[in-house]
């Protein structure tokens, strides 16, 4: 019932923030190569629609493809480890090793090996999003209401039935928790990977703008990323409410 109010409050705060920013830049006469005013950023964006549309398409494409593959791999592996619990220790050690490797350090290598195309970006994004999904879904598949477990055991349900009818639905809320962590990570992954060398995309646009000290251009890219990140998150919340309707989502 307070949703409407907090929504309005959020928009008011954003507008106040932008107004203060605009005012500050104008009054202190900060040069645009240090901090451009929001109005200038917006003008830059509007003046170059084709450039930004193309860059956004590339980066979002990389991020979503990587996210999809990372989620798929994490979910499948989590399911596999649940059905064959003997493998869990070995595989998790490996997964933690991947997780503890700083992926930003690996990104230039992948670019070196695989070139400036989209493939290394998708790989980085996939690796980055894979781990939170694996860990979350794995704990979702394991954290079963003991009373429900008793029920299925009293039915002498086999592990496939338990997996299909009990573990999988129980893990769905955890999948959404993982997606809400992974979706912003996917955008970060794609952008950072592009910084290490790319033929296109918002990360590449940012990098070019940065080397030319064309900060309005840089900020316009950041603005797009922020809006897409927020949109992606809300989209996930929207789907979550309809898919796992039996869970009260945590306020985040």
């Amino acid at each position, binding site marked *: 019932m307070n949703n409407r109010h907090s929504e309005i409050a959020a928009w008011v705060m954003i507008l106040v923030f932008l107004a203060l920013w605009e005012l500050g830049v104008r009054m202190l006469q900060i040069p645009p190569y240090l901090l451009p005013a929001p109005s200038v950023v917006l003008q830059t964006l509007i003046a170059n629609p084709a450039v930004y549309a193309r860059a956004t398409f590339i980066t979002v494409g990389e991020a979503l493809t990587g996210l999809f593959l990372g989620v798929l791999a994490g979910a499948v592996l989590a399911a596999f480890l649940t059905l064959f619990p003997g493998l869990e220790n070995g595989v998790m050690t490996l997964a933690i090793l991947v997780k503890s490797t700083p992926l930003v350090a690996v990104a230039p290598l992948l670019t070196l090996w695989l070139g400036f195309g989209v493939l290394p970006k998708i790989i980085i994004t996939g690796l980055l999003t894979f781990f939170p999904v694996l860990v979350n879904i794995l704990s979702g598949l394991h954290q079963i*209401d003991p*009373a*429900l477990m*008793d*029920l299925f*055991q*009293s*039915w*002498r*349900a086999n592990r496939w*039935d338990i997996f299909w*009818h*009990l573990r999988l*639905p129980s893990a*769905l809320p955890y999948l959404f928790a993982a997606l809400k962590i992974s979706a912003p990570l996917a955008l970060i992954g794609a952008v950072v990977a592009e910084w290490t060398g790319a033929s296109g995309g918002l990360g590449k646009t940012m990098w070019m703008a940065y080397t030319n000290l064309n900060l309005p251009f840089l900020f316009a890219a950041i603005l797009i990323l922020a809006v897409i990140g927020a949109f992606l998150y809300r989209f996930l919340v929207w789907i979550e409410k309809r898919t*796992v*309707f*039996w*869970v009260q989502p945590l306020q985040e």
Partner: protein
Amino acid sequence: MEIEINNLQHSFPGKPEREALAEINCQIKPGQFVAIVGPSGCGKSTFLRLIANLLEPSGGEILLDGKAPVEIAAQRRIAWMSQSPALLPWLTVGENVALAQRFRPQVSQPGLSAEEALRRVGLRDDLNAYPSMLSGGMQQRLALARILTMDADLWLMDEPFSALDELTRERLTIELLELWRPLQPTVLWVTHHIYEAIRLADRILVMSPAPGRLVGDIQVNLPYPRNEPAPAFQSLLLDLRAMLGQVSKQIAL
């Protein structure tokens, strides 16, 4: 289903090891409605879980129609119900019952249809509702419908109504009797409400504090419906009270 329990013991591992059941011997005739009462923590639930094959006993044997519980469970002749209604929140009322039907014995003639089971517990109009929309009492009714449709000949019920408010509990207890009578499965019903034990059961087993053993075995030969004011009811109640009082004194010592 005939139940025979010989020297049944159970201890939970740990330091120190916790002895839950000392030594239980008893025989239960098919179609009997047996209530198990005793002080809390006496191992009533453990006893039931052992019969349900949810736990392996540390010693002794359980014979269900002369066979091990694991065999009878594999034939899906045991229906289990606990304090938690254990409903799947992502399935509707109808789907919850339908899922249970997947796990009933294939050999026997088809049991009650989901619709008939739901009608008997008064939930037929809620077929498409989700469990979260039901009150606590209705959720337990749904769990009862699930048991009805399982077509099992042994019902193991671990304090099924004790999380409900007084009025709902009493009503459901009466309803349970109505549901049980036409089907006449063997029932083992753990409860800590001695009134209800007398109102429903053919036989009441009294357990001692942990490690649990059977210290009382009362036959209840009263006609239904059993009314509290009846002298026979009252005298049984006094007996049972005295028995439990004595058992509790053992704790105090």
